[in-house]
């Protein structure tokens, strides 16, 4: 996360390269002197765009490169396919077709498990499959995407203010606690209970997230260090809370550590039920709507509000912001608090949206850490985060349904590769011989390192 030129102007505002790249490209005569006189046509503009290491293309190429490396690993890790390579020279067709089958099965399976399975579609049209089975891949994708988007927004919002929020995991955990306590502690009608439980999660996460902000504002303690450590605090606190008399499920048949389940009235209703589809397996819930609404709110906040302007200004240059009369410490606190609230909301959608609707040691999974990769892939932009969250949600859903053709760890690996390439645009540029865009290569980084 080192940033050698901390105050480099074009870097943080990386919406810019999307449009200016083709516009400014013709101004560089060295590359295509022949085109200098007349306006370049769509074809050459397009070609130039896709061969330049701008933000959009680097993101896309990162994904494709990760898929290619993933394909190599699929081939290498499959003993049957590896076996066919031992006689490659006497019958190469075996090795090639086995490799092709392994890779295409895996990626087709990923698609079928995440978006739509064409076999099921055909069966559905023939009346042999239920609508539940047909929609289940997309429903799973949306289920996994909701908390990922919210956690991604939590990390992305902090990035905008120049802060690196590694503590999203801890804030998610606190969010699950806040939502669950209101979920089973209060007994209210649904129209009150659900919003209150969501709010409880957001407030718990927000307060916990504000701690690193306060520490940074008052004492200069680095938010990366403090927020990493607070992840452990949150996890241990969760362990203590679950075994607490008031929280633990009193059912003698539940021998394991689990809290009381949240009331029915506090749960996020399932989309299938709201749309009148009768299919018990479809567990996509209102959480995805909450996530998209949160993204819209963050987008508005950053683009239109004074608070968002202040956050971005401090993110760009804290010294200049201070000179301009903004309170940098207060901005740190509100940014981290807002980020924590978003992560807390992610925790709330986990408890209120996904069975067992209760606290356990693993209730937050790795959502907070995955949020960091989602934010990086989404370039810390709200709508970019939504897209990245949907993509990672799709990868998770696809891998779950397709475990027979694709090992579960493959998805973690693809995610890791994508992040490595995105964090190192120079690597992608070098591997694919891309041109440097006007304004230089852009990475998403926090200030202060």
């Amino acid at each position, binding site marked *: 996360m080192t940033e050698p030129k901390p105050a480099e102007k074009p870097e943080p505002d990386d919406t810019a390269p999307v449009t200016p790249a083709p516009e400014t490209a013709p101004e560089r005569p060295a590359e295509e002197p022949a085109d200098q006189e007349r306006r370049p046509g769509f074809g050459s503009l397009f070609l130039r765009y896709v061969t330049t290491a701008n933000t959009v293309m680097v993101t896309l190429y990162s994904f494709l490169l990760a898929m290619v490396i993933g394909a190599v690993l699929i081939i290498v890790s499959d003993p049957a396919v590896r076996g066919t390579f031992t006689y490659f020279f006497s019958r190469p067709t075996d090795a090639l077709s086995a490799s092709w089958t392994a890779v295409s099965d895996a990626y087709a399976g990923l698609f079928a498990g995440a978006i739509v399975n064409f076999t099921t579609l055909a069966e559905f049209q023939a009346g042999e499959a239920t609508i539940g089975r047909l929609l289940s891949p997309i429903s799973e994708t949306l*289920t996994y995407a909701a908390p990922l988007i919210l956690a991604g927004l939590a990390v992305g919002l902090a990035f905008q203010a120049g802060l690196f929020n590694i503590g999203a995991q801890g804030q998610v955990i606190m969010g699950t606690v806040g939502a669950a306590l209101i979920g089973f502690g209060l007994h209210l009608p649904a129209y009150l209970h659900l919003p209150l439980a969501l709010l409880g999660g957001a407030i718990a996460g927000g307060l916990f997230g504000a701690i690193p902000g306060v520490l940074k504002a008052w004492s200069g303690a680095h938010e990366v260090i403090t927020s990493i450590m607070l992840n452990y605090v949150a996890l241990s606190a969760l*362990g203590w809370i679950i075994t607490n008399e008031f929280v633990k499920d009193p059912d003698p048949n539940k021998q394991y550590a*689990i809290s009381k389940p949240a009331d029915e009235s506090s749960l996020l209703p399932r989309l299938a039920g709201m749309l009148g589809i009768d299919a018990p397996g479809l567990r996509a819930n209102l959480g995805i709507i909450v996530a998209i609404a949160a993204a819209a709110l963050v987008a508005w906040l950053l683009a239109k509000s004074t608070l968002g302007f202040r956050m971005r200004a401090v993110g760009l240059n804290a010294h200049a912001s201070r000179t301009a009369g903004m309170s940098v410490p207060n901005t740190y606190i509100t940014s981290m608090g807002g980020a924590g609230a978003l992560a807390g909301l992610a925790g709330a959608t986990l408890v209120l949206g996904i069975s067992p*609707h*209760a606290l356990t040691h693993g209730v937050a999974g790795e959502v907070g850490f995955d949020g960091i990769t989602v934010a990086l892939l989404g370039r810390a932009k709200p709508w970019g985060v939504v897209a990245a969250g949907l993509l990672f949600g799709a990868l998770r859903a696809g891998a779950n349904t397709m475990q027979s053709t694709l090992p579960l760890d493959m998805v973690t690996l693809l995610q890791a590769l994508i992040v490595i390439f995105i964090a190192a645009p120079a690597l992608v540029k070098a591997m694919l011989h891309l041109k440097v865009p006007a304004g230089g290569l852009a990475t998403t980084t926090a200030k202060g390192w």
Partner: protein
Amino acid sequence: MRTVRGKRMAAIGVTGAVALFVAACGEAPDSANEGGDAVAKDFKACMVTDTGGVEDRSFNASAWQGMNAAVEAEPAVEVHVKESGSEADYETNLTGFINEGCDLIVAVGGLMGEALTTVAADYPDQRFAIVDAYLPDSPNVFSMEFNTAQSSFLAGYLAAGHSKTGKVATYGGLKIPPVTIFMDGFAEGVAYYNETKDADVEVLGWNPETQNGSFADSFEDSGKGKSLTENFVSQGADIIFPVAGKTGMGTPTVTQGDDALDSIWVDLDGCESAAEYCEEFLTTSEKNIPDAVSEAILAARDGGPTDGHTVGTLENGGVSLSTLREDIDPELAAEIETVKEAIISGDIEIKSEVQPVAS
């Protein structure tokens, strides 16, 4: 300089190419004779692991062993497995297997109980089974539980009788009932030895009255297991009983260095699951998940009842001590047999409150 490096790179490249070429020069097999005489499969048993994954050398691994044992006993059974990366995956893995047309779906781990209750209610015609939980309200779920306090009682008695220093120790992965039940049984076994032999063997790491003790807070951190073990050894303990999955692997690495130190393993026979440390284990407090799972599959295939509840005990062999190490005093071994009979007959009552109760 540059040319030397270039030549070296070329040499490496050529060597690599030759190696690959030679490796790829094998004979192509005859593709005509494939398939063989496979048995027609008529029963599809599917297992969903908890977050440990199928290769955890412990809990999930033993359930998977049971699945494969069922195939061995009845070749018409086919088995499949889905691993859960997080708790959010439980429900999707269960419904995924329903969509794949499984005849019996085995959920491994008590934490899956909640997800299974929901799914089982949504699909009343689907057969399920669960390990380490009891779902009395789900008529289509077969429950398997294990009273490991009984086997651990014997392990505690053995440890107390074998200890030279008069101090034995135990520690857990997490303070949750499936772990503390082992520790309860162990401590009670030591207390029983003290009572009958008028001895004064002390248990470090667990107090069954206050339910407090030593925990690693992890099932994966063998470094933590090692430091806990070293700590106990420095306090004078010579037999250590870890109930902590992979974390427990830290214990035999310590006892290996000193002949006076020993360990007792849990779940799966340590001489098989951690064979490299077989010499360190006096015995294993076994939880016979493989047999239970295998029997559940075969019973379901034969059209047995869809619900049901088994509790593994010393009596039915669901829990047991594995074969004792050779150097155990035969007299002590004989006493353990007597204690075992007394537990089965009910003459010895184990007090642990977290024991599963047969219904």
